């Protein structure tokens, strides 16, 4: 192809944290970039000075009930089944639906942005295999990634403190000090410490002080699930604004990519085709194509075309975080509606102790690993009201507010082991509004996740009782046991952490991308989202997604960041 036929150096599919991180680095290196985003733009003006649009608001109806940020399950359904024996699917609708909007899931995440630990990148070498799972080492190490972690913490703006004894080493301090603890977290962190755990203030991509031209958070409480009306969350608006200001980057909303175009050899991508707002087909030709459509849509796009899949690993090894929810009811109000949804955390169940090792051995497993436990609360009244049901008791239940005012919750983001049979593929019957087959999840947890969850639940309940809870209860997502089909969170995993569906590795036969995030089959096709994760680790994924995406872009432009050392 002649250079004059090209529209840009790189076309990026998706404008979430991963696409934004890639675009930020590429444009800073002087590359021209076009970002195609399926969803609508409510994030920032696309003309200078690229200010906020003002569409975000503290409006539960709009954001939670009416799918303002997309996807609407009517026009973009997904399907779920536990195993092939379930038939085509068990349910149709909302399955791990991260927003489809300019900014992707970054817009409405409440943005805990922890790093992974050193060990997470070489789990197979450190702990060894587990039967029935595919535990591997990553082809990159924590040392490789540290400079990019530090860069992404600065670009998104992360507030935190270095008090977590289990955290990996850092080359510098957090860009901002931590924000205020929610009252419930003051109680639960104090109780966790008494029980011998090591709580710390969760690193959060929310301004605790004015930062990068954006104001400090004012604790409005409509955080997880909502766009921030005052731009106190930086990920990814800060990065996308810089991309636009560079003059080298363009964002095209309502541009649904339907095909990656390849040359005759099949080994070289020439660009993408997309449907615009009016469903007219358009084309962008570029030297590089970067998929940043999220770990659900990236494999769906590749599977539709059968691309980059000589390893048969596209869509496989689907990992979530196996979530354990332990909630406690308090005899007094905790006003969990004030603050950033989650302000505290502890990592003890990732590292483990003798009791955890015994629990593994008793279950015949060589080891088990849990995940970061979020200390959080709150919730809005429409969702609460739906739980109490209709009738004369309704208003009293709402006034007592067991769920909104007097509840405190632990969510453990438990490590989920890769299994080839857990996968995303194409549903044979259900379609989206464009007529394309819906993505389908087939997923069953490994015993590792269940044993770990059963071990952690009683510990977490003990902490909540120590904090003052009158009652406690533990459940999981996906739900287990006899009442699984009745879970208010649904039968599918409710996690918004989706990983592994185009895994990274050293061997083209068993992985989809190499250590620099390029697909083995198509050299100028890169994958920037969490599809590339080799393991799930027990940490919220987004900072690691961004660090990997940033690293891939630095390597592509031959501008790698210098190696770092502990500060």
């Amino acid at each position, binding site marked *: 192809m002649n250079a004059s036929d090209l529209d840009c150096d790189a076309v990026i599919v998706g404008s979430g944290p991963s696409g934004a991180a890639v675009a930020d680095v590429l444009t800073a290196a002087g590359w021209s970039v076009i970002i195609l985003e399926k969803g*609508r733009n409510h994030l920032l003006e696309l003309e200078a000075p690229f200010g906020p649009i*003002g*569409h975000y608001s503290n409006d539960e*109806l709009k954001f939670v009930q009416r799918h303002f940020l997309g996807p609407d399950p009517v026009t973009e359904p997904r399907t779920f089944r536990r195993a092939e024996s379930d038939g085509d699917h068990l349910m149709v609708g909302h399955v791990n639906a991260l927003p489809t909007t300019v900014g992707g899931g970054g817009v409405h995440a409440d943005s805990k942005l922890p790093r992974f630990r050193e060990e997470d990148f070489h789990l197979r070498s450190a702990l060894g295999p587990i039967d029935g799972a595919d535990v591997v080492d990553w082809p990159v190490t924590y040392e490789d990634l540290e400079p990019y972690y530090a860069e992404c913490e600065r670009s998104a703006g992360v507030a935190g403190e270095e008090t977590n004894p289990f955290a990996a080493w850092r080359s510098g301090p957090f860009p901002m000090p931590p924000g205020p603890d929610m009252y419930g977290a003051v109680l639960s962190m104090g109780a966790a410490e008494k029980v011998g755990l090591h709580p710390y203030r969760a690193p959060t991509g929310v301004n605790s002080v004015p930062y990068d031209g954006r104001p400090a958070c004012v*604790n409005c409480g409509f955080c997880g699930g909502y766009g921030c009306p005052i731009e106190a969350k930086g990920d990814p608006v800060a990065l996308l604004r810089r991309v636009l200001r560079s003059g080298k980057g363009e964002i095209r909303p309502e541009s649904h990519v339907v095909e990656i175009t390849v040359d005759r050899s099949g080994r070289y991508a020439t660009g993408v085709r997309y449907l615009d*707002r009016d469903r007219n087909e358009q084309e962008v030709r570029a030297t590089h194509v970067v998929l940043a459509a999220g770990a659900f849509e990236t494999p769906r796009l590749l599977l539709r075309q059968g691309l980059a899949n000589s390893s048969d690993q596209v869509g496989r090894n689907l990992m979530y975080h196996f979530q354990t929810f332990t909630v406690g009811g308090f005899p007094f109000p905790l006003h969990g509606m004030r603050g950033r949804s989650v302000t505290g955390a502890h990592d003890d169940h990732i590292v483990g102790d003798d009791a955890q090792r015994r629990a593994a051995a008793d279950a015949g497993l060589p080891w088990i690993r849990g995940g970061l436990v979020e200390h959080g609360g709150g919730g809005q*009244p429409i969702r609460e009201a739906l739980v109490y049901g209709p009738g004369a008791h309704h208003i009293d239940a*709402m006034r007592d507010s067991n769920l909104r005012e007097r509840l405190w919750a632990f969510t453990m983001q438990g490590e989920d082991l890769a299994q080839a049979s857990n996968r995303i593929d194409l549903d044979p019957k259900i379609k989206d*509004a464009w007529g394309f087959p819906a993505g389908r999840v087939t997923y069953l947890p490994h015993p590792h996740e269940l044993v770990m969850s059963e071990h952690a639940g009683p510990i977490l309940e003990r902490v909540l009782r120590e904090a003052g809870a009158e009652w406690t209860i533990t459940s999981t997502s996906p739900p287990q046991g006899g009442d699984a089909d009745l879970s208010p969170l649904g039968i599918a995993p409710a996690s918004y952490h989706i990983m592994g569906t185009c895994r990274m590795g050293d061997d083209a036969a068993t992985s989809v991308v190499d250590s620099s995030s390029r697909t083995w089959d198509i050299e100028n096709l890169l994958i920037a989202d969490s599809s590339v994760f080799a393991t799930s680790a027990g940490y919220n994924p987004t900072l690691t997604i961004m660090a990997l995406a940033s690293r891939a872009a630095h390597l592509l432009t031959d501008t790698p960041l210098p190696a770092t050392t502990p500060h």
Partner: protein
Amino acid sequence: MTSPIWLTQGEHETLRAVMDRLIPGAGAAGAADYVDLLLGAFSFDPPRIFAGGPFSGRHGGEAGFERWLDLGPVEEIAWRIRIEGTKDVPERSFNGPVVGWQDRYRAVLATLGADLASQPAEEQDRRIAELDEDDRTMIFEHACEAHYGDPVYGGNVDGAGWKAIGFDGDVLPRGWTDAEVSEP
């Protein structure tokens, strides 16, 4: 009282009585108006689906909720399917036929009877209990949305639903101070 947008006057009265049985006070606080505005959302331009932002104006800042946002083409398909149903329109029928809320409410309200509002509470409850479960679920979900959603959508008049449960609603741009967050 102004006449309803999509419901008939009689349907509106029936629905208001139903709402008060599901959530005491919801009907009086406009829950039937909420459903009426939802069913008639497409008689406005832009359709009254997504309220604007960033602030309601109740806690400072310029009030923006009444500047309704336009729908994109795909959003319009989704909301027309929900409200009007697929009605054999090819672009709405990608997963087969769907009966919309308009038709379901019309049928449900007819089943409940035009005299429902004048019946004793026990009779009202008896008729509501006999409804199809899917329809009852639909109405209850709308009752919750109406009574605890922002007043701009037609229910929760003057924040009556929020006041009844001690909920502060939206608080931006004022927000909460650090002390209000961290202390009892």
